[in-house]
Structure formats: structure tokens, C-alpha cells
């Protein structure tokens, strides 16, 4: 009997299934986290150079393209937060309470709630407090 096992190529694997596409989107949002960190780093740098430099950075952020970019990044960050808490329970040991397993969704919900609460707190601090 002839044996010649055929190995199929992996190119474009992630395009073959919506599940994989969502996974690649999730991965990409993490790269955007880095992009935002870069913007903040530039802000800190400009801050260290004095008022004029810092205000030039703020002025750049007021440009319509910058606001649009941040709108896109906001959507990406929301998807990042959503998927992060969704998968985090997979890294935790099995926990049983009263003989029943604690469902991962409960832990995810705790994470999403934490994001909401902390976001509200930060918003309030920047908006109303002397910082």
C-alpha cells in the first residue's frame, strides 16, 4: 500500500474560521495598548520639556484625525477589556464552592465590573477632584 502523507499548508489559517478572526482581533488590540502607551510616553516627554512643549502635545491631540484615532482606539480597548476578562478564568485553578465548580463567567463578570467601577472612579477623579 502506498503511503505518502499529505501535509496541508497553514498560510491564511486564521481567515478560515470566524473564531480565529476574533482571536486575531483580540491579539491586535493588545498591540494598540502599546500604541497608546507610546502616545502617553511622548506626553510625559513633552511634559518634562516644559509648558510650551506639553501644550503643543495637547494641541496635537485636539486635531480631528487624533480624536478619530482615539475613537478607534477606544473601541479596541473596550474589546480588549471584554476579551481579557472572558479568557482570564482559563488561567485559574479549578475552584469548587459547596461541591459545585465556580463558573468562569462569574469570574469574567467580576472583571467587567472591576473595569466599570475603576473607570468611573478615574473619570470622577479627573473630572471633579484636585488630582
Amino acid at each position, binding site marked *: 500500500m502506498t503511503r505518502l502523507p499529505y501535509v496541508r499548508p*497553514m*498560510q491564511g489559517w*486564521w481567515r478560515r474560521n470566524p473564531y480565529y478572526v476574533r482571536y*486575531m482581533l483580540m*491579539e*491586535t488590540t*493588545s*498591540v*494598540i*495598548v*502599546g*500604541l*497608546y*502607551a*507610546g*502616545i*502617553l*510616553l511622548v*506626553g*510625559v*516627554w513633552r*511634559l*518634562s520639556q516644559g*509648558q510650551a512643549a*506639553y*501644550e503643543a502635545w*495637547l494641541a496635537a*491631540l*485636539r486635531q480631528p484625525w*487624533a*480624536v478619530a*484615532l*482615539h*475613537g478607534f*482606539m*477606544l473601541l479596541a*480597548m*473596550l474589546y*480588549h*477589556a471584554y476579551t*481579557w*476578562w472572558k479568557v482570564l478564568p482559563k*488561567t485559574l485553578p479549578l475552584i469548587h464552592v459547596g461541591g459545585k465548580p465556580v463558573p468562569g463567567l462569574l469570574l469574567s463578570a467580576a*472583571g467587567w465590573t*472591576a*473595569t466599570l467601577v*475603576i*473607570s468611573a472612579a*478615574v*473619570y470622577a477623579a*479627573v*473630572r471633579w477632584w484636585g*488630582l
Partner: protein
Amino acid sequence: MKRSNAPIFWSLFGAGGVLSALLAPVLVYITGIGVPAGTGMPSDALAYPRVLAFAQNPGGKVILFAVIALFLWHAAHRLYHCLHDFGVHPGLPSKLLLYGSAFAGSAAAAALLLTIGF
């Protein structure tokens, strides 16, 4: 079998992931939409005296450093694996470049925050 050093980068990735899941949406909103476009934020919320005072505060420095550094380490780790997923097989040079950039960015953040003073 050789022990992987992945735990170092994975832990930094994890810490950055938690921090960004908690803070990135609200920060992106405040700095990129709220203040610049004036929606839901007074336009002077990020004024120089206010932000300078925050950066001069030791607690403020810790927060700024943690956010910038951990966000960078999170992104570097995912970008390294993303390249692999897209079929680009990054070796040691890419690893050095990506994680090196995260390191450089973190070092720069620390240095700048110290320059800003107390």
C-alpha cells in the same frame, strides 16, 4: 528538555493586560476624546499645572510609570506572538527588538519622570 524563559514575559504581559483591561478604555477616552473634543470633560482637566503636579507626586509617578511600562511589555509580548500567528517566524533578533523596545520605553519613562522632579 530546556526550561522556557517565557514566564518572565508572560507575567509582564499578564500584569499589563490586567492594568490595560481596567484603565485603558477610560484613559483613552479622557486623553483622546473627552478633553480634546470637550465631551464630558472640562478642557482644562489636563492643563499643564494640574498634570505637572500629578507627575511630580510620587504616587503619580508610580501610576504613570506602571501604565506606560506595563502597557509596553503587554504589547511587545502580544506583537511577538502576533507575528508568529501571521506566519512571520520571528527569531532572536525580533525578540530582542520587541522586548528591547519595551525595556527602552520603560527606562525612558522612568528617566523622564525623575527629570520632572518632585
